[in-house]
């Protein structure tokens, strides 16, 4: 069974590009876990390895970066807003993670996270309302065609 044969077989049921992407992603993830494991986890004796603060913060940072990319790269205004939501959620995760691992901050972290959530909701509301209002005028949600500021 050659590789092309395998790919062809799989291609009958899955989208090939997605499949390849998944394979690559999982390989990447495996590498990250294997290498990053000792840094990002705690040894808990009999309980085995447990995710440490660094692990959660790493996840938050990765999520934040993904949000940054989405914000800078997408043309649709609503996609930008979704990326903003991802960023806010990453921050929330980081706050809660700090709260979990630093005993003095535990309840405070939850309060802060709740406030952040509320603010994010308000901001999403108003942002989407603005997009809708602009869409009425310009008939397009693509931000680079909102060019009134470039003069």
């Amino acid at each position: 069974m050659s590789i092309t044969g395998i790919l062809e077989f799989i291609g009958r049921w899955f989208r090939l590009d997605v499949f390849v992407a998944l394979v690559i992603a999982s390989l990447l993830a495996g590498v990250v876990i294997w290498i990053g494991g000792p840094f990002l986890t705690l040894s808990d004796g009999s309980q085995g390895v447990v995710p440490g603060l660094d692990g959660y913060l790493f996840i938050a940072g990765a999520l934040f970066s993904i949000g940054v990319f989405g914000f800078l790269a997408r043309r649709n205004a609503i996609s930008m807003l979704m990326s903003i939501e991802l960023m806010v959620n990453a921050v929330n995760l980081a706050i809660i993670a700090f709260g979990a691992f630093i005993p003095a901050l535990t309840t405070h972290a939850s309060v802060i996270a709740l406030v952040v959530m509320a603010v994010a909701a308000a901001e999403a509301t108003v942002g989407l309302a603005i997009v809708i209002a602009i869409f009425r005028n310009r008939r397009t949600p693509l931000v680079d065609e909102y060019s009134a500021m470039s003069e």
Partner: protein
Amino acid sequence: MDPTDLAIVLLLVLPLDGFTLTALVGRRLGSRSSWIPVGLIVVTWAIGMWLVWSVLGGQPPFGPEHAHRFSIYTWIPAGTFQVPFGLAVDTLTAALLIVVTTVGMLVHVYSIGYMADDPGKWRFFAYLNLFMFSMLLLVLAENFLVMFVAWELVGLCSYLLIGFWYTRHSAALAAKKAFVTNRVGDVGFALGIAAIWTAFGTLDFGQVFAAFPGQLEGWQVTAIALLIFTGAVGKSAQFPLHVWLPDAMEGPTPVSALIHAATMVNAGVYMVARTSPIFAHASGTLSLVAGVGIFTAILAASIAFTQTDIKRVLAYSTLSQLGYMFAALGVGAFTAAIFHLVTHGFFKGLLFLGSGSVIHAVHDEQDMRRMGGLARKIPWTYATMLVGALAIAGIPPLAGFFSKDEILGAAFKAGSDASGFYLVWAIGFLVAGMTAFYMFRLMGLTFWGESRVDPHVAEHIHETPWSMRLPLVMLAAASIVIGFALGYPPENGPIHQWLAPIFEGPLAVLGSHEASYQFFGVDGALAIASVAIALLGIYAAWRFFGVDLWFVRMAPHRERVAEIVRTVPAAAVLYRASVNKWWFDDLNNLLFVVIGGRVADGLRWFDIQVIDGAVNGVAALTVRTGGRIGRIQTGRVQNYALGIALGLVAMAVGYLVTGPR
């Protein structure tokens, strides 16, 4: 002020006033505009003659040394550079004054008739008066700077007068050519003056001549002499700056008579004579002066052979005679040069005014091929011109004989000091014959033979009015007697006695010895020889161009001339060269107009492409760079956000790499 000083100042002020008044009110006076300038010039002449009599007679304040110098005021008081407005009259000045004032006055009187119909008459007289002022200032100057100012002024007046009929394109071009060529010489003169001031710290004639050569080395003396000489070359139209004088005939005939025969072109000769103490120390330059002079003489004479315009023949004749004067200066015969200057002023002035009379008679026709047989129709003009022609040919006892013979004699005798001067004599001898030939060719074509005048014009030929005839007669009389009066006994006549003290010093430096005149020895032989060759020239001209005197009559054989020119190859070449003025105008045109024009085009290209290109390039570069940088401002928030993100990343990386502070 001393009456003599006053008189000298008046000599200058009166013509200047004439110029100012005529320039201001002349137009309104119309035909009466000539009264003021002519009247003032007559008064100037009278004062001039009185001054001449005072100087030569040794009256106070001239005293036994026959000289008087004074200064009106300090013209330039600038620390170490002090230049007074110095004027002086000595016997050399007196000789020049005779010529300048007399010929000037006669030309003014002549112009009343000649320019009678010209609407610009008031301008003409104004310029003439300005010219008289400039020439008198040049002659009276006592330091180099005043002389230089007068030098330039004379050139300016020449330009104004040559281009008097400025609506004529050829006249405007001729005026420009004269001025530019003059300027070329003036540059040398100015450099020479600067060199003198650098060396001696003063520009006064007396002080400079006394201090010469001082600490200067031989080459410096030669350099100064050469530079000064270039000024003379330009002003007196010697080779190679001779090209302007023939074209200057575009001006009215009185202008040609006054400026280009009697006065302005003599300024160069006068200047070299005046600065003879400087030239005496630079004997190499003097030899160059002689060489240039005699070369110009034969060059001009050869061209005069084939010219058909009556004024051009006379112009080349002037060039030739000026060459004689410079040759005389070059061999050390300063007095002979000045003597010839005086006599030439009179008979050349006569010839020019006479030709003006002829032109006036045939209604502004200047081409001799359309003249002929005018002897009976304009007898007074004919008679006076005949006198002038004989004078210039050197037939005794008219004026030209004495002065020309003296020059040739001096050249021959100087040959014993430096054998090169024998060649000067030989060429001068040849030119004497050539002069006679072309002058009588002019007479033959104009006055003798059958009439080739246009029939319409022929009916109206008439003699000139007395305002024009009187100067002709007076000049003819002067041409007859002045040679004898000033130059007899030969080499010891009145003019020699007057000028001897001035040239004593330079002659002593040159070391030339004054042998006494031997009538029955060398000098006599030379005199007979020069008369002989003059007669030969006259005879040859008669043969070809006919003669119609009351005692001699010969038909013209002009076709023989054409035949000779056609058949003999050497003659053909010489003929073509003569007609084309030895191609000097073409050479100048090629060098300066064509090649100079290309150089100027190249420089213009450089200026536009490189220099302007650099400046414009900087501007364009700025604009383009600004345009490109301006594209950062897109107005889109996401672009700005990317900038923020990248900046943040860069800062953080930098911080991490260099470590926390």
